[in-house]
């Protein structure tokens, strides 16, 4: 006896929803998945009619599903949004080349305008070149910091009102866990927010319409919809701590599938004790981007790369910011400390 869909009770179920455990047919799954994203968008009031929204597109499953669902919901529910794709070219041979091809196909499939901003054009460095200098150990620091700013710069070039990213429930839960492990209370408080207001010049508001969508369901959705996406992980692997948080979350999910939502619920309900010091947000005195230090992370990293002192942006070298700003030369011992990169 085939299992019947628990929603329509007519068709054969083809999958068991990782999120709820219900057996659903293909159509009912699509319907539920799309409706849930719609409900999230409406409940959190993510967009206003007439806005121009940039979909951060990497060619991966999350952003491909996001682009597809955003276009579909925009038409189905008459959001009145002008959608476009923004892609960042980090300059990673063999990874980005292929995924960018996917994004370009997506552009045609979804008939959305596409803007590609490259690290090389923005910073004068490709990720490949950065890895050649800093090695594989800290490259993700660079990639994460640069990508965040690159998206903003791309969005500003395109005059976009908002950026939406493909972060899913797993990503959010994982970030909650990671911030607990790192004791980063400021990020812990921020990381469950579904949208960020504009934090200053040069920063475009962001939101996560897939915040409550399980990664497994995104994969199923992409698979059954036969969406065109690029499935290889970044060849420069993520940092170890995030890896631990990820493994832990997967194990939690295997014990109790609701764990992903449970962790997010926890994150949404944390309250920080009064009087706990939070970093004050200011702006970078070189590029104007938000920063809690005199120089933003990306400018420090860049300075390090350009001076051949790659460790500059990795450790805590806030003392040196003044020197860098005023173009003073560093002492020999300072140089020595910043030069060596242990692999």
């Amino acid at each position, binding site marked *: 006896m085939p299992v019947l869909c628990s929603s329509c*009770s007519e068709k054969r179920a083809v999958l068991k929803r990782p999120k709820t455990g*219900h057996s659903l047919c293909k159509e009912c799954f699509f319907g539920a998945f799309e409706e849930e994203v719609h409900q999230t968008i409406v409940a959190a009031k993510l967009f206003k009619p007439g806005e121009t929204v940039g979909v951060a597109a990497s060619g991966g499953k999350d952003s491909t599903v996001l682009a597809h669902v955003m276009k579909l919901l925009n038409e189905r529910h008459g959001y009145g949004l002008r959608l476009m794709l923004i892609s960042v070219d980090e300059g990673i041979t063999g990874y980005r080349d292929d995924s960018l091809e996917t994004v370009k196909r997506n552009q045609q499939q979804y008939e959305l305008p596409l803007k590609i901003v490259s690290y090389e054009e923005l910073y004068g460095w490709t990720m490949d070149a950065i890895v050649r200098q800093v090695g594989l150990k800290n490259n993700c620091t660079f990639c994460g910091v640069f990508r965040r700013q690159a998206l903003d710069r791309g969005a500003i070039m395109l005059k976009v009102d908002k950026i939406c990213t493909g972060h899913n429930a797993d990503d959010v839960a994982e970030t909650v*866990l990671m911030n607990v492990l790192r004791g980063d209370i400021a990020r812990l408080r921020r990381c469950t927010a579904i949208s960020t207001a504009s934090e200053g010049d040069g920063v475009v508001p962001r939101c996560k319409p897939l915040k409550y969508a399980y990664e497994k369901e995104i994969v199923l959705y992409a698979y059954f919809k036969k969406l065109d996406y690029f499935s290889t992980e970044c060849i420069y692997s993520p940092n170890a701590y995030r890896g631990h948080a990820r493994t832990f979350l997967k*194990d939690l999910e295997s014990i*109790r599938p609701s764990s992903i939502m449970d962790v*997010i619920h*926890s994150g949404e309900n*944390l309250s920080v*004790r009064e009087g706990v010091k939070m970093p004050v947000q200011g702006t970078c005195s070189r590029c104007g981007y938000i920063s809690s230090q005199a120089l933003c992370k990306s400018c420090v990293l860049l300075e390090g790369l350009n001076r051949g002192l790659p460790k500059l942006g990795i450790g805590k070298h806030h003392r040196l910011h003044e020197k860098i700003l005023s173009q003073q030369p560093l002492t020999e011992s300072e140089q020595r400390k910043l030069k060596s990169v242990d692999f």
Partner: protein
Amino acid sequence: MLMRESGCLGQECWSREVLAGWYVPRTELGYPRCRTSSYTLYLPSSLITICMLFNLVLQSILFLPPQGVSQKAHKKLRFVPGIVYIDEGGAVGQCKEIRQKTTSELCEMFRSTGFPFYILPLEQVLDLPGSVVVAPSSLSDQPTSAYKAAVDLFLQSGGGTDVITQEQEGVSLPDVQDSQTQLLQQLMDSAKTLTAKQDLLSTLRQHLLVHTARTKGYSKLMLGDSCTRLAVKLLTSISLGRGAQLAEDTGFSDCRYGDVVAVRPMREYSAKEIAYYNRMFKVPSVVIPSLDTKTPDKASIQRLTESFVTKLQADFPSTVSTIYRTGEKLQTACRSSSAEDTDRCLLCMCSLDTVVEEASALQATLISEQLSQTKAPLITGQNSVEPEPSAAVGRCCSAEGPCEGTQVAAGCCSSPKEHEAAELRSLLCYSCQRTVRDMVSGRAAAVTRMKLRSQREKIIKNSSTTLISKLGF
């Protein structure tokens, strides 16, 4: 007097001052596994009850005064600790003989401390009045004055052991009826997952501890959590959806019970330091199995988290202290005396965290469930997305309290059974709802026998049924 001088019990300084007398060398040695069960310490000078988990930490506190320090130092502490040990053998499936052997060993151990002690089988939780979940607005004077009398006598006798010994004699090894043990086992078995079982067990243990403290007239419970244990607990709480209750679960003082405040004075010490201390002062110990003894890492969320933190600590030695410090920065929401008990979870007794914003993990989950079931109307159009307020808090048809029979008949809830399940959910916090969901549905939902009234307040205040009956007995 130490207590008076510091004048701020429930604060960090208290822990510092008291523990200054219980110097624990900050040296690292082998890694112990904590055992669970329970104890109480009593502070007569300000009527403070201290209960603790029976683990290595607790033993340190108990055994230092008589063994490591002179009687003079003991007196300087100005309190007579009382010990509560909860024998959970009935819940973990131990046979009667083993349980008796363990309790008599402990009995010897406790007796040697010279402190009054209570050894209670967990089965007693089955007989607790439903009111244990509510802080009585006025504690009955009886136990308090009885305790005061005992304290006075103790102080008069110059801190001698006469009074204590008397109290000790009266409380050893109560008999457990087989039928009660069976009932407890049935309740434990109704939890389908080890995660839910462990959660249920700790709830039952908490209830019995609080009840004991209350009826014996104590106002403070002392828990023996080390920072290692608290780091694990913090991450476990996050994983179980208890973010809102984190501060209560892991903070220095825990006010969720209202009249009885739980404190965690050992939280600055790591499990290693405590183990070292115990070894140095030859603190005796008894090995007591817990629910997850000899289970694989992925047997439960609690177990997984413990092994995760332990392994991470081995690679990154700052793991435990970092997680612990994270907890330090989180809010402790102590309830005011006027806080309504109806806003508290029936099981864990923390504030309900189920009234949430429209865009929240809880709402999203409810919507997913709705959309995956038969006859779920696919809501279309941007304006019709108001989530049903009823669903939001796990209630059924009306926002204020449960629906009456007529509404059930009118089809607001698809069945009376479902209606009762919704009813029970509305009394529980997010995480306890998850636990109950992991219990055999017949049990969890069989709240039929529970005499629910339309007002939640009335339910709790007027109900003569025990908590356990609410869970299906």
